[in-house]
């Protein structure tokens, strides 16, 4: 449908908690889902995007790590509505960037495996077991739905870096 503008911090939408998609919001979904995919694919090396990053204040994310060299196991294109992390295990530090803070990257500690509950845009319930890079990306995107940016998860002065141009 359309490549949308990605909001950059300090846009206030990025620090807000997005409400769940409820009954009556279904009409929003086909376009939103397509816009998320189109916008993600329009940015080189972008592996995920949250609805809040394009200014739509609902709980929906897209993740696709299938083309990324760091990805091991993955589920291809994931479009998730009202995702919820049910279980998280393991812990590992990895370097992250974000289209909403494009000039910086940071080392952030994340769970290495997660079990998610979510709906598809078509309304089907899904349980997804993700690990490695895909799990990391899902946690980053779900953080966006709660107004949490990667800078909020840095745990050392030496863990924030200027992105190389």
């Amino acid at each position, binding site marked *: 449908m359309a490549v949308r503008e990605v909001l*950059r911090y300090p846009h206030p939408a990025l*620090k807000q908690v997005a409400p769940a998609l409820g009954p009556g919001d279904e009409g929003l979904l086909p376009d939103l889902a397509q816009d998320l995919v189109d916008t993600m694919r329009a940015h080189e090396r972008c592996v995920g995007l949250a609805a809040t990053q394009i200014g739509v204040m609902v709980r929906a994310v897209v993740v696709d790590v299938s083309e990324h060299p760091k990805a091991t196991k993955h589920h291809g294109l994931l479009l998730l509505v009202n995702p919820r992390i049910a279980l998280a295990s393991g812990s590992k530090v990895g370097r992250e960037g974000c289209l909403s803070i494009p*000039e*910086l990257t940071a080392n952030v500690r994340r769970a290495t495996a997660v079990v998610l509950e979510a709906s598809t845009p078509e309304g089907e319930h899904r349980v997804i077991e993700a690990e490695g890079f895909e799990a990391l990306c899902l946690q980053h995107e779900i953080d966006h739905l709660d107004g949490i940016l990667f*800078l*909020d998860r840095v*745990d050392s*002065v030496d*863990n*924030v870096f200027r992105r190389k141009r």
Partner: protein
Amino acid sequence: MVYVPAAMRHLLLSGVGRDRPGIVAGVTGLALEHGLNVEDSRSTILGGHFTMMLMVSAPDSLDLEALRGGLDETGRRLELEATFLHELVEPSAAKSPDPSHVVTVYGADHPGIIHAVSSVLAKRGVSITDLATHLVGEGVGRPLYVMLMEVAIPSELGAGALEAALAPLATEQGVEATVRVLGRDVL
């Protein structure tokens, strides 16, 4: 050989100049000639300038004026904009407290963020042990200011209370402020 620490003299040696290969090699070469030992140091690029700050120990026999002359000459040769040398009067300062938490503050850049935050910390007896700031995104709308601090929090204060103390300031300054336990990875 047994290393016997002697009563050493301590000096602060620093320099700043346009980044180019050879600055570290040149300055440490001079240090070696004068028998200096680089103990703690931090060098990085700030705003496109290579900046270095070295805490060095020196033998009692150090000729300070000769070192000063050598540093001037080295600075000229490396086209440094400034060098600085100072012998510390108090060679072994009080033990600094161990950092326990990381304070992260970020928001649209404007004057006064660092002062406002550090004033809140100072008032509550919080000691800043490490501080780094980044200004990014100049030329693409509002520049983003990011400040990261490692701090030692008095045990009676606690991270939650400090975050609560920073909350009104964060609202007033339009920034985000979080307090997290310092990462302590042992591998």
